[in-house]
């Protein structure tokens, strides 16, 4: 019994972490039709910003570090979109290659700046003690990650469904040409959404930090997970990213616990099945 409860909580916390990673990726993919392969690097550089800030400034609030780091990464994302991606709008393949190249550049810059050793992101002290759930210990911070994911999901939902900008983004996702034709400033919208996506990834890096730490290679570890979640859930769909994250969280956790020999393929099986039988993903409105 304990096994099932603890692993369920584990699945939820991994799902929350994946949502923080994948929601930005999904937003960008949905609006800009751009598989932003820099996303893992944004996540990593966010984790580094947070880890270094918390190490350098004693007493810095963890949540301030997360938000600040998100803003910094959003700014980097905005510059990248304006200065580089913008020039390649008519060349989707070029865009993908440039984002991949950019991820290498960011990864190497991190290595040069912060060296090859892992840097821990400290868990806020009031969340360090394990919580007792039905008589056994579970790390409190992991539960908080789930709450963070829910908060971000809810905020994004409100923005997309109930604000003017959200309506514009939805219009852009559904029909970019028509949105432009009726006067929606698609160009500014692109930059804004790219910043937002990068920013969520950057803040997610800090929020995931107490579990993952900041280390070289974090980007490459995370990017495939973002791709899997988005392909499973469906591109451009917030609900898809949300459900996809938790499905992957459950599959990965129970898969590695119950069938350890399948640890390497367990993540890719659901993705292959979805691509084969439902190419647009579970909730996608677009065909991948």
């Amino acid at each position, binding site marked *: 019994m304990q096994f099932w409860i603890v692993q369920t909580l584990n699945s939820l*916390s991994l799902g929350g972490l994946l949502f923080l990673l994948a929601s930005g990726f999904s937003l960008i993919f949905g609006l800009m039709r751009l598989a932003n392969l820099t996303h893992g690097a944004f996540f990593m550089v966010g984790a580094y910003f947070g880890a270094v800030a918390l190490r350098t400034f004693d007493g810095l609030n963890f949540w301030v570090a997360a938000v600040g780091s998100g803003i910094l990464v959003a700014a980097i994302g905005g510059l990248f979109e304006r200065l580089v991606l913008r020039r390649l709008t008519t060349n989707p393949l070029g865009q993908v290659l440039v984002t991949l190249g950019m991820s290498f550049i960011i990864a190497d810059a991190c290595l040069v700046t912060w060296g090859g*050793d892992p840097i821990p992101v400290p868990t806020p002290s009031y969340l360090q003690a*394990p919580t007792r759930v039905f008589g056994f210990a579970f*790390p409190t911070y992991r539960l908080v990650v789930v709450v963070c994911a829910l908060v971000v999901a809810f905020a994004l939902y409100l923005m997309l469904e109930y604000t003017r900008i959200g309506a514009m983004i939805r219009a852009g996702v559904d029909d970019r040409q028509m949105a432009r034709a009726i006067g929606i400033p698609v160009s500014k919208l692109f930059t804004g959404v790219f910043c937002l996506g990068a920013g969520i990834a950057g803040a997610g890096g800090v929020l995931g930090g107490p579990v993952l730490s900041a280390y070289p*290679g974090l980007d490459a570890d995370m990017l495939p997970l973002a791709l899997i979640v988005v392909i499973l859930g469906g591109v451009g769909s917030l609900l898809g990213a949300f459900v996809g994250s938790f499905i992957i969280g459950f599959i*990965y956790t*129970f898969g*590695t*616990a119950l069938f350890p020999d399948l640890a390497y393929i367990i993540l890719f099986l659901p993705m292959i099945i979805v691509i084969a039988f439902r190419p647009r993903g579970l909730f996608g409105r677009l065909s991948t």
Partner: protein
Amino acid sequence: MAISRRTFVKGVSAAALSSPASPLLANAQGGDPIRIGLLAAKTGPLASGGIDMERAMQLFLRDRANMIAGHPIELTTLDTAGVPATARTKAQELIEKNKIHCLIGPLAAFEALAIADYVTQSQTPTIGVAAAEDMTQRQINPWFVRATATSAQCAYPLAEYVAKELKYGKIVTVADDFAYGHEMCAGFQRVFEDNGGKIIQKLFPPLTAPDYGSYVAQIKNADAIFLGTAGSNGFRFLRQFIEYGLKDKLAVIGGMTALDESVLRNMGDEALGILTTSWYSAELDNPSNRIFAPAFRKEYKYDPGYYAASTYVCAEVLEAALKSINGKLDDKKALMDALHGIKVDTARGPVAFDDHGDVVGDCYIRKVTRKEGRLVNSVIKTYPNVSQFWTYDKAEFLKNPVYSRDFPPARNLEN
């Protein structure tokens, strides 16, 4: 400031011209230069270790004013990026373009295996760091010696120590899912079970596991958990292990790379009291390490660990061999024979090689303590002259298949 494209291109090409592999210029006086190649992964996931390797080598040469056995040294360091194919290309560059007399490195077993054939074919004396068991057991290479340890070599004494002195009865092993982790766990299990202990669970998370939560939650009730991890993985695993409140229930012990000095400096009090085993500790008190460790700490502001020490020890071994042949390098075979026959006191203690090219040297049981504000691996027990075959008969040992996930079979797993 506006940077025109042309200045940018100029800047980049200037940087490109100045950076690659400019050998430390040799002193004008002295005999013919001795050319040493160092293969180190300075970028990519193994970068931390590779950078330490280069730093230790530079320190070693600086202390000797770039002269060994009366000859000036030309050191060329090339970056393998931790990729086997790149290691092969760079080894070729060192041997054919730089015409090195001797090669040190590379760091990872898969890199070493990628260059093994080439090293033999080009007859280049190689002092390796990679731990793959069979490189000095069932597939020995006459041009390769290893001054550090095989994957399992340091796990043997720890297994005996915890079984006999700490009376642990049940242990869970957790190791990275690649040959190094498999071999280390297998060696640990063999000696631990031969001393009456039981390995009740073996977990092998993938090298790039994003989250150890699902593994930590499975750990069964035992006396201790053995960590056979490398790089940042042990560090990340341990943090999650503590998060789950398990540190009060199970003791933590680890292999030679689990709580390396390079990882310790980013840890806190949670690491205190953990036992690990290695052929080195920055705390070792011997004449060579009394020079090396403080010098390294002074120069780079942190303690040397596994990778820094490995290169330094390789360099000391090479120095002793070169001295014994008076720096005569026309005959590569003579250098190799000298290496095989050597007995030298290094930063890790006395080093000699068995006839398979692997080191016979001391292993240390170390405990994490706090000293002058930083965490260190204090030596609590020394096992002298540990061989890669431990106390087993060599011929019998070599009849078995190489250690793996399934050999020796685990007979005491609990379900």
